[in-house]
Each structure stands twice: as C-alpha cells, then as structure tokens.
C-alpha cells in the first residue's frame, strides 16, 4: 500500500495515499463528526460539520471539509482546535434554526446523528432563530417524510438516485425554500417509489421513518376474539439485537422469540418455514418452465421492493417473475387456509402479523391477489425497528430474557430458509433443491460459494444432472437494472435470477436497525449481518428445504404436491404492469 506521512493532532502517522482526511483520522482513532457523509453513497462536503484545519507545504492552516479533502505528503492536520469547535457549533446552530426540535418522542431520539452532535458540542438553542419552514408530512406511502426534521444532507437522495437508481426524490426549489420531495410536489405514494426504505436507513435524523403499525398490533393482542399470530423473517433475529445494544452480527433468535411471547402473541412462528415452502414451489416452477418452454430467465419474487421495481421499470419482464408469493405472504396464506381449517377457526378471526426487515412488505400486504382465504393473508407487517419499539414500550427487558423456541406446528426452518435473508441465499437454497431433484440422489456438497458475498451482480454456472443451469444474482435495484439490461441485450444467457431490492439483501433491508455513518464507515453491515445467517445454516443439521418435515406435512395434508392446483390458488400471485 502506498502511504503518505501526515501529522494528526501532533502525532505522526503513515496513511493510505489517496485517502481523505476523514479516513486518515480513523488511523489516529479520531472520529471527525459528519452529517451529510455516508461512505460510498454521499461524499459531498455539504454540511460542513467535518471541518478541520490543515497545513500543506508549510503554508498557513486553513479549514477544509475532511470527508472530501485528500491527504498529501507532510500534511499537518488538527481536528479539535477552538476555531474548529466554534465553527462546528455555529453550523449546528444554523441547522437547528430551521429544524423541528420536537426530540422527546422523535422516532430517532437517542439514535439521531444531529442530536448526538448537539450533545457533544453543547448546542440546545440557536442564536439564529427566525423564520422556520413548515412542511406537511407526506404519509402517502409506507415511508413517511417529515421535512420539518430534514437537514438537507442528501443522503436519501443519493441512495435513491445512485444506489437504487430510482431517483424519485430530490431537492426542489432553492435557497431557504430547498426541500427534498418528488417531482412537481407530488406525494411519494403517487410516484414509482418501490418502498425499499433505503432512504430511511440513510437518514441521519427523524425526517424519514416507516408508517408505525404497532398500535394495530397492540390493539389486536388486547382483543380476546382474535387469534393473534406472528412470524419472524430470517433476518429479524439476526439484527434486532442491535436495537438493544448488541454488536451488529449478533444472533438473538431465542430472545426475540421470548420477547414475542412476552408481548402476548398467541403463536410465535418461524418464517424460515415458508422460505422453505417458497423454495419447493419456486424450484419446481423453474424446472417446469425449463421443461415446458416457459418464460426464462425466471426471476425470484420474494422481495416486494424488487417486484414493484420490476412492475414500474421493467414491465415487459413481469412474465419472468416467479408467480410464487413471498415467504411472508405464503405464511399468512397457509395460516388462514390450512391452519384455520385444522383448528376450526374463521380466517376473519386470525390476526396475522409478520416481523420483517422490510418497509416494502407493508405495501405488499395490501396488494391484490394476496388474500387466499378471502381476507388479507397478512394483516400487519412490522419492521425490525417497530418490533424493537413494541418490546421497549411493553417494558420487556430483552437482554435479560431466557431463550425461547418457536411454536409448533410452524417452528421448523432449514438453513436454506435462513439464508434467504442474504443476497444469493434464495438462489443457493433453490440450487440445493433443484440439484437433488434433478440428480435424483442425495446432495452432499451444499455450499454454492459463487453466489455468496456482497458483490452487486454475481454470475455462476452449475451442472445439474445433464443440464447446465446458468444463474445470476443481483442485490439493490441499481444492480438489478444493470443485470436485466445485460439479459435484454443478450450479453448473458441465464435461466434463473435472484434479485433482492436492497443492497446485500434483507439483512440490509429498509426496516432494519439504523447504524450511524460512523459505524457504516468501518463496517460492511451487509457482510457482518449476513454472516449470522450463514453461520446458522452451517450449524444446522437441516440444510435443505425439501428435508423440512413441516413442509412435507403441508404437502401431505393439504397441498398434495408442489405446484398443484391448490398450491397455485393459495401460494401464487400475479403482477401489474405499472410502468412509469
């Protein structure tokens, strides 16, 4: 590694050539404050909180923005002079002068990057109090925008435009009137937004948050006439600990289940089970399409953000989407048909809650053709963050809970179901199934390493029986766009594609715990969080969806066989060519 010598706060360091002052300061174990900076996503030097003093070539010190200013040989850097402190403090006061300071019940209180800096710098009030902008809250979509809290850092805009390559939000008007909104001041819900929520996890303050559905769940729990059931998506257990002070990458499945029981749910279930069911349905659908000349490549359909993206931006490819419902919707559908029948319950009396890492799932619950029993398959989808808030509100001491287990009969999930939460996981799970079914013998090598990892687009080729299956995996809709354009141009020839709407898959979903830019600078959350799921899978003695006894029971007692007429009625859905 090429290095340059710099002096940071009086101490000599050799730091990577080409690094910014902000990155170099990391070597000196100094966190320079930032607000608009978000590694690899938004590096624009706009908020001016990262101001430092530098001297180059013996010239006098001057102030530069650390997040974008590159280090040079012999540079002398001061990160904490009175001049810098005064300047940062003033910038905070200017931000506060037009900021709704209702912090007490703000959804981001104690997890707000602005609040933390104000505490660090002792800023309460603003000397510059004067005219304040008032904006209407946009609650037209599951993603809610409160511009009264917005600090115009552009992190959401950059994420939407550059990472997801959607660009439905941006800065409108200029000067003091500048605000983040959609074209022609339309509501987010009327735009081709896919509800992925990546803007929410990018936001340093409380300007963006998911629609809070927790009261509906509390009300249902309090209603004795309802059977209130909850199922947890694979990546919720892998991340919810972050809301209770655990390091990212800590599996807290047992405590999560215990907390759900303590909240009063009548049944606490594992969505890994319907992930397995999805695999059996989807892999058979794929094999059927290959055999019968159906639309190929077939593309996975578990990610509702991706589905809406495809409907808006690639409407000509909706035939390529697997017709399988997502594991969330399959779960609700199974519970309100099979289980209701078994228990002698009226589906109307079941209140199905799903805990998911996703904001797009809130939209998915209301989609057409997602009501197998004549009532919505899922009543309410709550994010990992909302579940954590429910636990906090109920006064449950999460860290002190003893581990508990999911309830029968939906307690079993395979390792293949667990890795659904990471990019490449659905593909790998499907390959484990397809390989065994086609080869007709027990599959020994279960790791499909080529489709693992956080790269945006992954291509691989597997020989299964006498068939070669070419597969592709993309995560984040920007990468999906790239891949689909390659497919359309004939540059790649694949039969099966997995797409996850969020970069890295569900572990990095828009409903997941929010980590500040300072943490995201050092840690690739996608990889750290995914490792929990791959470790789960590796440690499991049930690693293939087809070996899941609960899934086998569903087919034996109810669906008959994969892709049967009944399975189609209950477990499959249809799509809309939305366009732009």
């Amino acid at each position, binding site marked *: 590694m090429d290095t340059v010598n710099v002096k940071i706060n009086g101490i000599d360091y050799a730091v990577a050539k080409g690094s910014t002052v902000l990155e170099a300061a990391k070597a000196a174990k100094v966190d320079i404050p930032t607000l608009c900076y978000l590694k690899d996503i938004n590096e624009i030097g706009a908020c001016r909180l990262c101001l430092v003093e530098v001297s180059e070539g013996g010239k006098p010190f001057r102030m530069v923005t650390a997040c974008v200013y590159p280090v040079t040989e012999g540079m002398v850097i001061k990160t904490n002079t009175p001049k810098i402190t005064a300047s940062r403090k003033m910038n905070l006061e200017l931000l506060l002068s037009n900021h709704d300071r209702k912090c007490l019940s703000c959804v981001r209180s104690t997890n707000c990057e602005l609040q933390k800096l104000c505490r660090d710098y002792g800023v309460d009030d603003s000397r510059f109090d004067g005219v304040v902008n008032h904006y209407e809250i946009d609650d037209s979509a599951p993603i809610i925008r409160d511009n009264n809290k917005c600090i115009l850092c552009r992190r959401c805009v950059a994420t939407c*435009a550059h990472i997801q390559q*959607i*660009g*439905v*939000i*941006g*800065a*409108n*008007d*200029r000067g003091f*009137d500048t605000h983040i909104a*959609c*074209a*022609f*001041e339309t509501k987010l819900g009327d*735009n081709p937004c896919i509800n992925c929520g990546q803007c929410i996890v990018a936001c340093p303050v409380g300007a963006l948050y998911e629609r809070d559905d927790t009261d509906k769940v509390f009300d249902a729990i309090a209603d004795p006439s309802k059977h209130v059931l909850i199922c947890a998506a694979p990546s919720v257990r892998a991340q919810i600990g972050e809301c209770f002070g655990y390091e990212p990458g800590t599996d807290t499945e047992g405590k999560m289940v215990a907390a759900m029981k303590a909240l009063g749910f009548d049944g606490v279930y594992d969505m890994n089970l319907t992930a397995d069911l999805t695999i059996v349905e989807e892999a058979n659908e794929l094999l059927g399409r290959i055999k019968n000349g159906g639309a190929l490549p077939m593309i996975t359909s578990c990610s509702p953000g991706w589905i809406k993206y495809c409907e808006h931006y690639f409407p000509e490819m909706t035939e390529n989407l697997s017709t399988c419902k997502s594991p969330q919707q399959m779960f609700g559908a199974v519970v309100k048909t099979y289980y209701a029948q078994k228990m002698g319950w009226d589906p109307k009396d079941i209140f199905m809650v799903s805990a998911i890492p996703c904001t797009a799932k809130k939209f998915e619950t209301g989609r057409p053709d997602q009501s197998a029993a004549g009532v919505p398959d899922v009543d309410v989808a709550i994010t990992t963050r909302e579940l954590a808030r429910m636990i906090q509100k109920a006064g449950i001491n999460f860290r002190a809970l003893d581990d508990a287990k999911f309830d029968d009969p939906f307690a079993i999930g395979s390792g293949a179901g667990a890795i659904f939460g990471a990019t490449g996981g659905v593909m790998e799970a499907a390959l484990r199934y397809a390989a065994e079914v086609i080869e007709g013998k027990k599959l020994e090598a279960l790791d499909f390493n080529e489709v693992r990892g956080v790269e945006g687009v992954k291509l691989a080729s597997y020989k299964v029986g006498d068939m070669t299956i070419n597969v592709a995996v993309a995560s984040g809709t920007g990468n999906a766009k790239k891949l689909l354009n390659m497919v359309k141009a004939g540059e790649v020839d694949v039969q099966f594609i997995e797409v996850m709407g969020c970069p890295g898959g569900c572990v990095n979903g828009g409903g997941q715990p929010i980590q500040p830019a300072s943490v995201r600078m050092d840690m690739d959350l996608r990889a750290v969080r995914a490792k929990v799921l791959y470790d789960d899978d590796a440690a499991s003695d049930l690693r293939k969806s087809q070996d899941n006894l609960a899934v086998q029971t569903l087919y034996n007692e109810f669906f008959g066989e994969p892709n049967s007429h009944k399975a189609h009625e209950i477990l499959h859905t249809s799509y809309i060519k939305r366009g*732009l």
Partner: protein
Amino acid sequence: MKKKLTTVDFRGTKEQEEKLLAVIKKYAGVKGAMMPILQEAQDIYGYLPYEVQKKISDETGVPVEEIYGIASFYAQFKLNPNGEVAVAVCLGTACYVKGSGDIIEECSRVLNVPIGSTSSDGKYSLEATRCIGACGLAPVLTINGEVYGRLTKDDIAGILAKYM
C-alpha cells in the same frame, strides 16, 4: 421563492413535440445536456410543464424528479405559461425600495392570481422579475411588454382594468 405549479391545462401541439424530440435527439449521449435541453424546450413551449418534463424524462432516462429539481432551482425556468395578459412586476433593488413589493401584492389581489403563477383559464399571469433596467421609472411593471412606471398601489386597479 418557491415555484408555483401551474393549473393551466397543457395545450402542446404535435409540431412542438416534434421539435422537442429533435432537440433531445441532438443532445443524445452528450453529458450535462439537461440544461440546454430544458432551455430549448422552454423556447418551444414557453414554459416547462409536467408533460414536457415527463417527455424529456422518458426520452433521456433521467428521472423526472431530477429534471424538476433543475427546473425549480433556476429562476430562468418557468413552470407557468405566460397569460394572454402577462403582468411582470420588477422586484429589482431600486423598484423594491420604491415599494414594488406592495405593487405586486396589489396585482395579485386584483387579478386573483398568486405571484409566480397563471390563472387556470390561461388569461392572466403574474411574475416577479429581476431588474429590467428602468430604474429611473421605479417602481415599474410591464404588461405584455408595455411599461408602466412611477406607480403607486392605487394606480394598479385602473391599469389592469384596461386588460380585463
């Protein structure tokens, strides 16, 4: 000032659309071409309504919000068409200190048109302009290019009545 969205129905013609498509084609593949495309689109239509920005978005692949962000940022881009009676009040420094703020408010009241917009029937438009170089006559306004100077608030109703 926050730009006002138009309430006037779009009346673009086939000829205008062909001209616009030719402009977009001319800049195909050129980096940073959105500014000249918008300028020339405004030359064609007189303003940049949704229908025009959407067309540009569809043809260039640039999200319509990104285009709107540009159109709403720069003062030179208009989101409202000129009315049949186009009233422009100078808010340049000289006119402003001579009270053109009151003049424009009065115009808005008499015409019942918010500043920076056009009545939905397309008849009247009211805009604030930068200095038009007639500081000696401050405060001034123009109606369809005709200049009225040394105004007081009480003159406005009478002047506008001629056009109503």
